[in-house]
């Protein structure tokens, strides 16, 4: 049983428009049997936070290409992408690099 997690999520480069224009979010993930990984976090964001147009943020069960993801200021490609197991107080940043956000 994994303990509940507190995360700091940040959206930028236009991605914030899909979240009511708010850039910084402090979220609490409930405790669950398996540890939280990025894949579950993205599903959770889609279910609980995305206000509109999920296709502009997600593609399948990952983020849309063109959105840069940094976990604790490091490229998520270095951290195992969807398999990365989130730790309490992690800082996850999503920056859209697409034209017009």
């Amino acid at each position, binding site marked *: 049983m994994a303990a509940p997690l507190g995360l700091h999520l940040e959206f*930028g*480069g*236009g991605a*914030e*428009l899909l979240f009511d224009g708010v850039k910084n979010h402090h979220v609490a993930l409930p405790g669950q049997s398996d540890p939280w990984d990025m894949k579950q976090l993205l599903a959770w964001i889609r279910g609980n936070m995305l206000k509109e*147009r999920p*296709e*502009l943020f997600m593609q399948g069960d990952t983020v849309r*290409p*063109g959105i*840069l993801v*940094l976990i604790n*200021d*490091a*490229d998520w*490609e*270095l*951290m*195992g*992408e969807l398999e990365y197991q989130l730790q309490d107080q992690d800082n996850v*940043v999503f*920056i859209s*690099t*697409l*034209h*017009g*956000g």
Partner: protein
Amino acid sequence: MCQVEEDYNGLECKQEKIPVPTLDRKCVKCKEGTAALIIRVSDAFCRSCFKEYFIHKFRAMLGKNRVIFPQEKVLLAVSGGAASCSMLSQVIEGLSRDAPKKLRFLPGIIYIDDGGACGRSQEERQRSVDQLKSIFTHTGFPYFIVPLEQVFVLPSSVLVPVTPDPDPSSPSYKHAVDQYIREHKLAEEDEPSAAARLRVEDSYPPEHKLALESLFSSLNTLTAKEDMLHTLRQHLILHVARENGFSKVMMGESCSRLAVKLLSNIALGRGAALASDTGFSDPRFGDVGIVRPMRDYSSKEIAAYCRMFDVPSVFIPGLETRTPDKASVQRLTEAFITNLQAEFPSTVSTIYRTSEKLHTVKPSESEHSEPASRCLLCVCALDTCVDKASAFHATLLSEQLSQIKLQDVSHDALRCAETQDASHDALRCTETQCCGTGGCSSNRVPAHQDLKTLLCYSCRLTIKDMGSVATLPAYITAEAERRRKRSLMKKEISEYLLEDAD
């Protein structure tokens, strides 16, 4: 500068075949720091090496191309986005260096507020402008904040291409640098107080706001809107640059952006202008050169740099914001390339390398090319003076034939279409139509057809998409009228002119 190339080529050779994602990868450059960002397939850089690499690349780009001379006034086109704001930060960085490595040009900043074309409210626009102002003021550079509505007060001279005076006194970069160093020793105290010349032109009458709205609503597709916005923005930047004596304009287009531009421009029929649309330097305006110093950076590098090193930027929604992938040709191309890039990480760089190899074939008579041979809107050399057996003429003929049935003037128009001269067919065709009936009054409303003859293939398509060309800003229609009259007059006096020797 060759050292740079060697450096990075060396790195590329060391690429591992299969990137293994591990949590504790080391930087490929210093082999010590913990990797923070993957730049190319398996090149992971640590924070400090990434910063060094990013800064170096900007200087290398300017050093390699040697187009910006010491003491030259350079206008930085900043949109508020990550790419142009990181360009601004690199310029600030370069100017703050110690003597030998210092960049020596005089920067100014321009922001074109296109909110009026994108349907943003006055308050939203004001908020963005205020945010940008605080960034710009902080730099100490003179800046211009120009609302797009200003296109309605542009003079038509903007569209007249100026050939750069072949000044024999400033031929080489090296010469200019030497001269600068000499002069600088003489007059060290002659530092221009750049910040003293702040000027903001952020007012416009409400009728211009309405005119801009009707201009953009008369364009039917997002593709044409984006194209028109780009054209008008270029004209405004050019005008401000000329008015204030800037001889270079820096655009912050990244290589990801340019890859999209390259492919979408081909789709839009701008193949003939690709080299100047996407190359490092764009000489089309003659006296004001456009340079793209960010064209070596991917949008990922830029976004990561801005985030890691706190480069201030302002997100400003544009025409493409929150539109689906298929909303426009440009948007679709972007989606295509970014999706491909996710699977095949060398997509963007491959397209980008291709764009580097493109060159414009100069038409033989380019030395004395007249204004009429340039496109009215994009100011590129007209690509419509081509051989009769070309895709362009095939399209034109089929368009004319399809219009004949509609207007039911089959015989005249058909004859006109058939007897076209290889080079000036379209021009003559319209002239026989509108002037054959004696209609040469000066206050005519310009028709689609009149404009078309002055445009390149791609701009014709954009104009074709317009409901009414009457919504175009006055400087465009005035210049179109001037060129039309000029070509008419030339035709009238042609029989009295001596033929060119060849």
